[in-house]
């Protein structure tokens, strides 16, 4: 178990290697390599092998260099308590160490789990089709834009997104749009919600897609989603809505407000914050069945007439359709989708709704407490919030955030005098400390 001179994960004894070489008819392994000397490499990466114990200690020491602070961070990426059973079941080797289900006859279990994940998203979104995952919310949004490009014929190439949008999400969207010659353009916000009047003015024949979020990146619940959906429909633009499964469990069903596509981040279930690792939702209406990016699991029958699951409609995908595929995505986030499904099953609809209600209630309560402090006003927007809200501070926000970090609390500085604070079940028991620290540094 110490450092190794060969890979510890190959079983070959010297005798076996010899026997195999002589069966092949060569003298040594080198004879099997057909690499011209001109491009050969001497093998010196300068990486020393360590034992698994050493590596565990090394990484543990490295990670301990992250400060021990309480995070009130969100802005589209959330952690909730992940029940232990999720880890134990998802970590089963059959799930973790399997490949994509190209041989469905021996992959029924994982296929069924993904089918169930899809079904949960169908319920949450109200849309009839959900794929079995994208990388994250940002890339799912990008895929929605390329879908819009394929399915909408308009006179222009505008993708309208809210003014309040994570910078990183917009940056990803722009990379997806670049290849399709789409242009990303912001529409203004009015007190934390989409400015529907401005959006109505802008919406027109050249708009391919309108994107809105509920809740917004500032945690505000959008109050006029159906209006936005109507504007998009009138412009024959795709209406894409961003959300997450916890919010979706109580907020308006996307289908009911005219959403054509739902994207978003489902990693709020099943994953810790994990430095931004995610799980992209992609759900859509029936008309886009053959334009969906990514993998779809369908129910079918086997030769015995029994229900069986399989990856289906693969002719949309890159390994068959190549440059005419609906996306280049291959490996997605299947195992994370499994985790989200187990987490959702563990909560059940009651637990999901309770969690969402707490996300609304805790945010309101914390905003009230911060609002009571002199030098701070919260929430900045007169809206209902999920998990998070903006705070206006008299002093420079960045300095306040820095001071709070020194006190052991992380919040976002989102503008010169704006902070943003996110409260979930994971930090709700630390709000006293946060409020006290706020009072201290403000």
């Amino acid at each position: 178990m110490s450092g190794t001179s060969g890979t510890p994960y190959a079983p070959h004894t010297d005798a076996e290697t010899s026997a195999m070489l002589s069966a092949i008819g060569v003298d040594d392994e080198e004879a099997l390599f057909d690499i011209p000397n001109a491009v050969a490499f001497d093998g010196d990466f300068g990486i020393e092998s360590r034992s698994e114990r050493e590596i565990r200690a090394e990484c543990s020491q490295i990670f301990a260099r992250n400060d021990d602070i309480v995070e009130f961070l969100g802005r589209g990426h959330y952690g909730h308590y992940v029940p232990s059973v999720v880890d134990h079941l998802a970590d089963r080797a059959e799930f973790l160490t399997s490949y994509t289900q190209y041989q469905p006859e021996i992959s029924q279990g994982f296929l069924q789990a993904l089918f169930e994940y899809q079904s949960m998203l169908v319920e949450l979104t109200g849309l009839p089709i959900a794929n079995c995952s994208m990388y994250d919310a940002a890339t799912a949004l990008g895929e929605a834009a390329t879908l819009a490009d394929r399915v909408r014929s308009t006179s222009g190439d505008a993708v309208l997104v809210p003014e309040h949008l994570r910078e990183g999400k917009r940056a990803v969207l722009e990379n997806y749009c670049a290849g399709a010659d789409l242009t990303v353009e912001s529409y203004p916000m009015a007190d934390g919600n989409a400015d529907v009047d401005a959006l109505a003015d802008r919406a027109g024949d050249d708009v391919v897609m309108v994107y809105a979020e509920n809740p917004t990146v500032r945690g505000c619940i959008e109050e006029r989603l159906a209006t936005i959906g109507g504007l998009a429909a009138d412009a024959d633009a795709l209406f894409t809505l961003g959300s997450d499964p916890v919010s979706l469990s109580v907020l308006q069903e996307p289908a009911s407000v005219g959403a054509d596509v739902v994207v978003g981040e489902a990693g709020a279930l099943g994953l810790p914050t994990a430095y931004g690792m995610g799980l992209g939702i992609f759900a859509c209406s029936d008309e886009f069945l053959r334009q969906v990016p990514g993998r779809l699991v369908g129910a079918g029958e086997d030769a015995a007439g029994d229900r069986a699951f399989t990856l289906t409609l693969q002719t949309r995908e890159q390994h068959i359709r190549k440059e005419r595929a609906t996306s280049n995505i291959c490996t997605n986030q299947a195992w994370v989708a499994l985790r989200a499904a187990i987490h959702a099953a563990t909560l059940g609809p009651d637990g999901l709704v309770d969690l969402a209600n707490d996300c609304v209630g805790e945010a309101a309560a914390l905003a009230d407490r911060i609002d009571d402090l002199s030098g701070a006003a919260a929430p900045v927007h007169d809206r209902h919030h999920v998990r998070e809200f903006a705070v206006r501070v008299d002093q420079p926000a960045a300095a306040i955030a820095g001071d709070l970090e020194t006190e052991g609390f992380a919040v976002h500085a989102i503008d010169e005098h704006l902070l943003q604070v996110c409260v979930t079940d994971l930090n709700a028991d630390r709000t006293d400390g946060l409020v006290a620290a706020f009072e201290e540094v403000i």
Partner: protein
Amino acid sequence: VHEPLLSEKDETTVDVRESSPLPDELTREELTLPAPSEPEIARHYTRLSQMTWAIDSGPYPLGSCTMKYNPKFTEDVAVDPNAAIHPDRSARAAQGNLELQYRLQEYLGEIGGMDAVTLQPPAGAAGEFTGIAVAKAYHEHHGNDRSEVVIPASAHGTNFATAALAGYDVVELPSGDDGRVDVEALEAAVGDDTAALMLTNPNTVGLFERDIAEIADIVHDAGGLLYYDGANLNALLGRGRPGDMGFDVMHYNVHKTFATPHGGGGPGAGPVGVVDELAEFLPSPRVREADEGSGYEPFEPDNTIGKVHGFTGNWLVLIKTYAYIARLGDEGLADAAAKAVLNANYLAERIDLDVPYGPFHHEFAATAGDRDAADVAKRMLDFGVHPPTTKWPEMVPEAMLTEPTEIEGQSSLDDLAEAFNLAYADSDEALGAAPNRTAASRIDQVSAARDPRLSWQALDGE
């Protein structure tokens, strides 16, 4: 063997408005989902897992998919709660994660012979997209308007789809008679419009592109860039580096080369390495040592393409990548390649099917000849192994693309060979009726696609 759907065990409807603190017009009316107890959940997923083949079940020689054993200890490293921080933390408060990112960038740079690395792409295909977007940014920055990406016919489908996603036209390059790039055809295909040639090496039938230096010259002389698809890097470890062969940009498949678990379809990670000239276009942020040498800091490359993932990619997978590389070190990595190539050659020797192209490295494309490769594969399921990739690449008729990887021993390879030979020699009837020792018998793909039922809601009322 059959496990009911969760929805067949329970469906519970909750009146959302009853408990919601929100005004009714902002909420949905109700939510209907299964509410199984924890013991039921444990049984459900335990049973589903047992109906799922995995690398821990047995041989999994899917060519070009590289199913290696995933060392268990890498899981323990990755679940460290100290590593699972929010991505919006300040750099000051995230020094540990930044340090590991930096170290991994350095490792990958060494292994690929690349000057700069981004860890952001969340999968191999995302890495391709990143690499091609970087190439595009490079050309645009230098005022070059190039519209084409050249790709060998035998390449992975993602190459074609990626080029299209990035807005390029695809020029498909037919294989030479020897299964490699036809240099003359390449010269004809490459020109002023060529943004890049995408190549994997060894290629998808395991052959090393011996003319790689000449190929690089041809592409570079035309002003194009050479892209390395990292799918087959496992065969080269310690013996060749893409950077040394003239590649300008590459992605790493951490699952295929560094044994991170595939998870039934992800999460993966597709870091991208580039030569110096392209570093300024990489996604933001990358990580570097801070000036005073007192820590690490994220930074935005000067002419970055922006972002390809909302945050910093599939972090937990990257941790496992680091742990695997650290475990193997120079000698282990080189040995992994040696044993992968040894195993492929030994297995090919043992099977009765022809292997038209060689000398191959870590994988080979056998041909099922006048048998249907997919049927042979289904029959192999009955002999307790996972079959190879079938009917691809198309340059080999009825191809069975086989990659045992380094983790199989001689007896395991002998078992695999026996499964190959028994299935290959079986009657047409037996092949057509296969599999019949599996949880499900042959699944009718055509009807599943004709009448897609993609959710339990779609099954209701049937």
